[in-house]
């Protein structure tokens, strides 16, 4: 990649590390929870950058260039997260700790929003997390995309009531409520396994014998 003629940036790195440390110390005065979340999200940003993990590529590359490794990694991420969230949620329930999962109502706007989001992330070269990560990497393109994201978010916020009023909205469906925890987890893992098989098949189909 960009190996040639790179001067070491260790001084800058040291300065930046000190700046982060100061931020963390400052934040500790405010709230331990915020400090922990800040630390974890630093790790998230670092991990996204180091592994070049990109949701946009995971969706796009099989279609555009027949490359599926990242898609398979996304399936793996989901396959760990489903049972992981199930365990965390159940343990929290047993210990009577407050914890809410992300079960949102849906309607036509969920679908329309998803399609617009999909078009947008291919055009902008990254989804929301991808944009944040690439701003950190110094890409001018995603800084502009971020401005678009902010304007779009405002427009979206103010038009959501119209979508709800005109097309209705169904309450969120939490699969474990309907079929129970274990069947819900197993069913979703089976769907992921099927998607993984399709991905492998797609790769073989596009790249010849594989």
């Amino acid at each position, binding site marked *: 990649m960009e190996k040639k003629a790179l001067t070491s940036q260790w001084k800058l790195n040291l300065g930046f590390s000190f700046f982060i440390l100061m931020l963390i110390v400052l934040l500790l005065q405010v709230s331990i929870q915020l400090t922990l979340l800040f630390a974890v999200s630093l790790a998230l940003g670092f991990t996204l*950058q180091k592994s*070049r993990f990109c*949701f946009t590529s995971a969706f796009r590359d099989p*279609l555009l260039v027949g490359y599926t490794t990242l898609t398979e990694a996304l399936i793996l991420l989901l396959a760990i*997260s489903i049972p992981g969230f199930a365990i965390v949620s159940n343990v929290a329930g047993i210990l009577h700790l407050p914890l809410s999962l992300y079960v949102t*109502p849906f309607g036509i706007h969920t679908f329309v929003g998803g399609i617009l989001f999909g078009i*947008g992330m291919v055009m902008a070269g990254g989804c929301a997390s991808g944009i944040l990560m690439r701003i950190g990497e110094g890409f001018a393109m995603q800084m502009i995309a971020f401005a678009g994201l*902010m304007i779009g978010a405002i427009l*979206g916020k103010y038009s959501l009531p119209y979508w709800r009023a005109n097309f209705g909205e169904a309450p969120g469906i*939490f699969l474990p409520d309907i079929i129970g925890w274990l069947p819900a987890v197993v069913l979703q893992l089976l769907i992921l396994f099927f998607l993984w098989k399709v991905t492998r098949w797609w790769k073989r189909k596009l790249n010849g014998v594989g």
Partner: protein
Amino acid sequence: MRNKVQIIYKGPWAYWVGAVVLAILNMIVLIVREMPWGITTNIEAWSVWLGSNMGLLHDEGITFKQLMLSDGTYLNMGVILGAFWGTLAASQARFRHMKNRKFVISALIGGLLMGYGARIASGCNIGLVLNGIASSSLSGWLFTIAVFIGVWLGSKILLRFLL
């Protein structure tokens, strides 16, 4: 051995390693925050605050202090700073210019569509694809199918107008 240590801070890591680490960190967010990681709700709040301070939007009563005490702010800021730290650790930090003018328009329109889509669907790839599905919610699966269709359409646009 030295090479292996170097890979940790220089990268790139294998995708599956990224997936496993992200899964663990995402679960830590769930435990600490008592709700899943999300990105665009906070971006929306900042945008509305900015818009109302510029006099463009009706004041929604969001204050700067509220935003600075919101966990979403630190989650988003952390991702940006963490990624910057990643490039710095590998001595690759620099400003990256755009190669082509038409990408300015593409980025702006793409960002707009994404922001709009995420806010009417109540989530992005993190909030709905990853954490909607991880929460065993039907909305997550529906949104994911729609995103896939959108990406397919977007790839057609990309091939036709941009590449």
